[in-house]
């Protein structure tokens, strides 16, 4: 399956994401610059992490208004899978493609460590490689990962299985509501998550727990 990685000024995890997608899918993703208004025919579009536009105004706020986002919105409406990691997640919520908002960590500190994630919904396009309720390891590195959503919206999201990952075993690094670490949109083809699965995909990383997200999305789950 083909993939694309979006590049914006200030994103710095794009190389790691390109390496992960290349390793897992066997082909390099195409890269898409922020001013592009058309995205090539791909099955998965990834917005990687970093600090787009220096996190000015609000994390992801300015990137979310760039021309490429309109193109991504159109692709998502056609059913193309979209994955936003860290700043990519912040951009997706700022673009209104995912519910909620990501606020400053309650500790007010930048956190860079490993957490445990519970796979709350293993039936999404991004989590089929995992078992329901499976606990995986994953690194996080962010200052604004404190997920907030109105109670009413949260209830609807939980009923529909839109909460996909929760921080497990007391490892919530940012104070996010209900330990939420990753959510999908109503249609299930747009996933945003704060942790960085691209940094735990091969033995040299110290584990391969993050691989399942890409294997699921790229449809290359080992039999």
């Amino acid at each position, binding site marked *: 399956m083909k993939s694309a990685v979006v590049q914006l000024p200030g994103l710095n995890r794009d190389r790691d994401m390109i390496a992960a997608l290349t390793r897992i899918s066997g082909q390099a993703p195409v890269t898409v610059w922020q001013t592009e208004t058309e995205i090539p025919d791909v099955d998965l579009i990834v917005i990687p992490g970093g600090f787009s536009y220096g996190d000015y105004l609000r994390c992801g706020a300015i990137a979310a208004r760039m021309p490429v986002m309109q193109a991504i919105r159109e692709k998502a409406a056609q059913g193309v899978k979209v994955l936003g990691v860290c700043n990519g997640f912040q951009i997706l919520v700022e673009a209104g493609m995912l519910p909620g908002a990501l606020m400053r960590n309650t500790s*007010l500190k930048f956190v860079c460590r490993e957490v445990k994630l519970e796979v709350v919904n293993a039936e999404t396009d991004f989590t089929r490689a995992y078992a329901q309720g499976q606990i995986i390891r994953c690194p996080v590195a962010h200052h604004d990962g404190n997920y907030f959503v109105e109670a009413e919206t949260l209830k609807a999201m939980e009923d529909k299985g839109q909460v996909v990952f929760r921080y497990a075993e007391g490892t919530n690094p940012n104070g996010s509501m209900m330990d939420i670490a990753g959510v999908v949109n109503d249609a299930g083809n747009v996933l945003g998550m704060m942790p960085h699965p691209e940094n735990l995909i091969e033995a040299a990383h110290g584990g391969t727990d993050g691989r399942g997200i890409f294997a699921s999305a790229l449809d290359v789950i080992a039999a």
Partner: protein
Amino acid sequence: MIKARVTVTLKNGVLDPQGKAIEGALGSLGFEGVHQIRQGKVFDLELDTSDRAKAEEDLKAMCEKLLANTVIENYSIALL
């Protein structure tokens, strides 16, 4: 030209860890009895128009589209 000030504040019910930290710092400076600190943002702007109604309409659109995240923030507009 019209000058304007846009104020963006967190909605009620949204936790503000920065406000809490500031409240704690004021307490440690000896300012007692200070509660409910909420940190916000202020934008001062100049608009190339003399039409106050249009200015207000444009500012509202700016807030909705960029200056505020209406999931968590309220905004108010003042023409100066």
